[in-house]
């Protein structure tokens, strides 16, 4: 168990404060946001530009985690990632241990929680880029790859950053899926959201209050950034 027992500000209440959940949550959120951004932008591009069958079905499937109860998602994840599953076995072979009930599983949970939102917003951002810029680039001989990297992405980047910030904020807050696939192991898989639940259950009001305030402050700061980054009228 990692204990950061004396933070730089001394306070009687926080003397024996366990900061691990906060660091774990930030680490999980950072990693899941990174994964969500890379895969999310790719998926959003496919959804925005792809001319394939089942495009809207894929869109619906990606949106599903936003509406399903977390326990349902957690159950699916346990089935797909569990030690008995194909993926679970491959993962165990590769990394020498199971995925479920580790902090990496919390990353997967946070990813599932935040990626749908990111894909939605990113798709909207990519589609909102004035098509005449992309068309102009094409008539100038630019490949689709170059059009995406040099025109579409730079013109949509503010909105994509905003979406990324939102995804980060959201992945900080997952509770249901995390507790089902990563569990509630203090010092190993206990994220802030889970720790708050735990603290309230245990009657540790001070800890719950502190964590609630910190998370609220972080979320507020991120939303403020996201709003500032949000779609702005680009001067023509």
């Amino acid at each position, binding site marked *: 168990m990692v204990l950061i027992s004396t933070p730089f500000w001394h306070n009687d209440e926080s003397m024996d404060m366990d900061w691990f959940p906060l660091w774990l949550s930030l680490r999980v959120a950072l990693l899941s946001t990174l994964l969500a951004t890379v895969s999310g932008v790719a998926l959003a591009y496919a959804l925005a530009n792809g001319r394939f069958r089942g495009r809207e079905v894929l869109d619906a499937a990606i949106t599903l985690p936003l509406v399903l109860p977390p326990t349902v998602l957690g159950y699916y994840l346990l089935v797909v990632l569990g030690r008995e599953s194909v993926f679970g076995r491959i993962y165990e072979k590769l990394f020498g241990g199971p995925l479920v009930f580790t902090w990496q599983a919390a990353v997967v949970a946070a990813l599932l929680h935040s990626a749908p939102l990111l894909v939605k917003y990113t798709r909207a951002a990519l589609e909102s880029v004035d098509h005449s*810029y992309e*068309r*102009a680039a094409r*008539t100038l001989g630019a490949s689709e790859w170059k059009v995406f990297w*040099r*025109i579409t992405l730079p013109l949509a980047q503010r909105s994509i950053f905003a979406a990324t910030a939102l995804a980060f904020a959201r992945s900080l807050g997952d509770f249901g899926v995390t507790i089902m696939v990563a569990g509630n192991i203090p010092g190993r898989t206990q994220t802030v959201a889970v720790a708050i639940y735990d603290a309230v259950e245990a009657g540790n009001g001070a800890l719950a209050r502190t964590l609630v305030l910190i998370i609220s402050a972080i979320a507020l700061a991120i939303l403020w950034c996201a709003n500032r980054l949000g779609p702005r009228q680009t001067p023509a």
Partner: protein
Amino acid sequence: MILARIRKHFPASAESAAFTLELELQTTAGITVLFGPSGAGKTLTLDCIAGFVRPVEGRILLDDAILFDGATEVHLPPQARQCGYVFQNYALFPHMTLRENLTFAADRLPRLERHRRVNEMIERFRLTEVAGRKPHELSGGQKQRCSIARALLAAPKLLLLDEPARGLDAPLRTELYAVLHQVRAEFGTPILMVTHDLSECFELAESMVVLHEGRLVQTGPPARILEQPASVDVARLLGLYNLFPVEVKSLDPGNNSCRLRFGDWDLNGPYLPGRLLGDRVTLYMRPEQLTALPRDGRPLPNQIPATLDRIAELPQSVRLEFAGGIHVEMTRAGYERHRHNKEWVVEFPKDAVRVL
């Protein structure tokens, strides 16, 4: 040069009625304009040629290259068509400077060559001072020149322009025409441009293609189309005509003459080949071909008494609008002489009488 046979159908939707574009089009060297009212399919034609829109069937050739062929399922992407496109909003990339915009178009050239070509274009189109600016810091004329220069840098075989003069004020319009004449003279790139401004056709075009409701209705040099519209529709589109229903009363090939019944009056005109007695035809006269004179006793042949409804002052002339939709355009000097006149006759010169 472009040779296109295109068919494209849009079924009726909540916002619009069904629309079918079906035309065969051929351009020559120099500037060709696609002329027609809004919704005639001009921009759609351009988009089919550029490869943004896939026609249902037909075939599009640019010089010897097949850009599209419905039968063999050939549909080249815009990247492979070598068609430059100047958008109505110029579509300059807003996150790049003017120079970066131009460099983007020349990316495939080797470094030194690219640099040289970009600089040459910047100079030719008088953009040296503003090369480091972003598009929103440029004036309308600079944006326009930049977007034309950018399109030319990719060495297109054909330059497509979508209503480049729309929304421009008069000085910018004149500047645009000068730039397009420069492009024709210095680069020799054939130009196909969309417009619904007739004076623009005369200013720029060697050849004019008139579109109406998705169909090509006439093609030829602007002066000839104005002289001889192919149909009442075309005459209406050109918007410069008096159009009146008349009836053929007599035909005399020997004297090269005919008589037309216009309301309660008779008009003499040249012989009308291919018409029969009693045919109902449309008389068309340009406003400047008619003359308005003070009424002096009984009207002479080919004069019709008319009541003046309205006087419209034009930049170079005066247009007298008479009852029955007869429009006469005369010089300011000509009008001044009869300024206080009350009763008018309109003279239809015999040689100018034409029917559709």
